[in-house]
């Protein structure tokens, strides 16, 4: 019989170390081992404030989340010091499948769940994009990444998708993993479709329960928290919202650009 005792409650865990990845992004290591698949996420609770999902950028003995300061919640997180406690529940969602001959395409903070994946892959090709040099995350964590920046201050000037196209023209991959701004992921997926290559993308939606009951995070009948956040091509093809629509906290479905604007206010 199924287990009727799945409690889903935050546990307070200590921040053991904070790494300044760049002026906008920090990695928070926590004093609890979480055995998770690359791609899984946790809900982070700041008592009295709010609770939000964050992918694990490191898992296992050293477990961490990597966070970009964007609004009220992440600002509060950025004020915390090693020794302070945050609430954690999870891990939630599914993970990336682990395949050989992989290409990893990361945009901005999307490199967080992918970093954890990269360390479990055998010599993947890594394409990492950022707006500018000072926004690159995990410099030196993995060797041989092709870096792109929008402004050319590091690596190739341009978009990760350009590098991906170029790579696909000359190399064969069994799969492309991607995480980053949804517009970027959508383009990556379209490129993969054109080349007949399997793609796995990690989607982001506003979440409430995180364990599949409230429906808040749904995208065309799939729950990003439970059926995702990592979706294979078969799902991405079915998700008409992918790259186009997302739901506000009220559940109202809006254009993904309006969602982004709301999230930025």
């Amino acid at each position, binding site marked *: 019989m199924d287990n009727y005792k799945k409690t889903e409650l*935050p546990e307070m865990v200590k921040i053991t170390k904070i790494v300044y990845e760049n002026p906008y992004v920090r990695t928070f290591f926590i004093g609890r081992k979480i055995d998770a698949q690359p791609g899984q996420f946790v809900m982070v609770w700041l008592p009295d404030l*709010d609770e939000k999902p964050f992918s694990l950028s490191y898992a296992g003995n050293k477990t961490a989340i990597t966070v970009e300061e964007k609004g009220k919640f992440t600002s509060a997180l950025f004020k915390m010091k090693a020794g302070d406690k945050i609430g954690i529940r999870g891990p939630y969602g599914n993970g990336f499948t682990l395949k050989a001959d992989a290409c990893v395409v990361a945009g901005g903070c999307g490199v967080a769940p992918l970093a954890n994946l990269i360390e479990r892959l055998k010599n993947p090709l890594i394409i990492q994009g950022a707006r500018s040099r000072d926004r690159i995350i995990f410099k030196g964590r993995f060797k041989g990444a092709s870096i792109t920046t929008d402004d050319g201050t590091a690596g190739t000037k341009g978009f990760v998708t350009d590098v991906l196209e170029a790579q696909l023209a000359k190399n064969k991959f069994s799969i492309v993993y991607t995480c980053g701004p949804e517009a970027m992921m959508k383009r990556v997926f379209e490129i993969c479709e054109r080349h007949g290559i399997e793609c796995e993308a990690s989607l982001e939606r506003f979440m409430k329960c995180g364990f599949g*009951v409230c*429906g808040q995070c749904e995208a065309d009948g799939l729950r990003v928290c439970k059926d995702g956040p990592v979706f294979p091509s078969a799902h991405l093809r079915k998700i008409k919202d992918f790259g186009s629509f997302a739901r506000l906290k009220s559940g109202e479905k809006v254009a993904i650009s309006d969602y982004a604007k709301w999230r930025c206010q």
Partner: protein
Amino acid sequence: MNLETSLCGIKLANPVILASGILGVSRSLLSEVIRNGAGAVTIKSISLEAREGHKNPTVIAFDAGLMNAVGYSNPGTAGAKKEFTGLKGLGAPVFASIIGQDASEFEKVAEALGGLEFSAIEIPLSCPHTPGFGTLAGQDTPEKTHEIVRAVIKKTKLPVFVKLSPITRNIGDVARAAEKAGASAITAVNTMGPGMIINIDAKKPVLGFRMGGVSGPALKPVAIRCVYDIYESVKIPIIGIGGIMTGRDAIEMMMAGAKAIGVGSAVHYRGMDVFKKICSEMSEWMYENGYESFDGIIGAAHG
């Protein structure tokens, strides 16, 4: 085993209904739930204007059940009209759930959703954790219940289900008031409490709203008793909800007096295919015990 049944003239392939507030935010998710075996589905409650609801955490699971203080987040009637189109195409009846701060708001929401293809309208007068609504607004008295049901009935030809709270004393009286006012069915029950869980390491209540409604296994015996009481009070059918996890639980709820049963929290414990699972467990029990229909089952624990 044929589990077909009907509720206020609405045909259901089986009596296992998705409860309001679980998964019911989109047409496509409702469709998934139907694919997973639900005999009917209820949408998450809709208010006149869009609402963001309470801040997170809004849903947690403790030892003995779930607790939520979602706070009726919903896209309002405007959003609902965009979302819930073409419902007849889903293959099972879809029930609207509408809320308001007073009878006139209920009226307006009922009217606004009139053009959509819902099979019935449920009115929860029973949320225990949203100021302005449900028990916190005193909507669970016989008087208010009567007033709100009357108002909604004026605006719709659909069957109206009234959803009651397990924390209402003399729940039979409220059910009677709803029946008298013209309700077609009673849905019982909404979440219990409210309850609170404090994280002692943070020294803070966990839910963003501090307290929230309790559902799941903790609620089941209270829900069974409520349905048992209501069954002795009214003649209209009852949709029994609260902690139903298995086919045996569903049969138990029916023996207390429910004609159909609602399932919410079990989605957490047993997955989205819990609807199929419950149906096959019901079938199995009925087969083993020589039942060919729900006739000898509904209300069997009385007398």
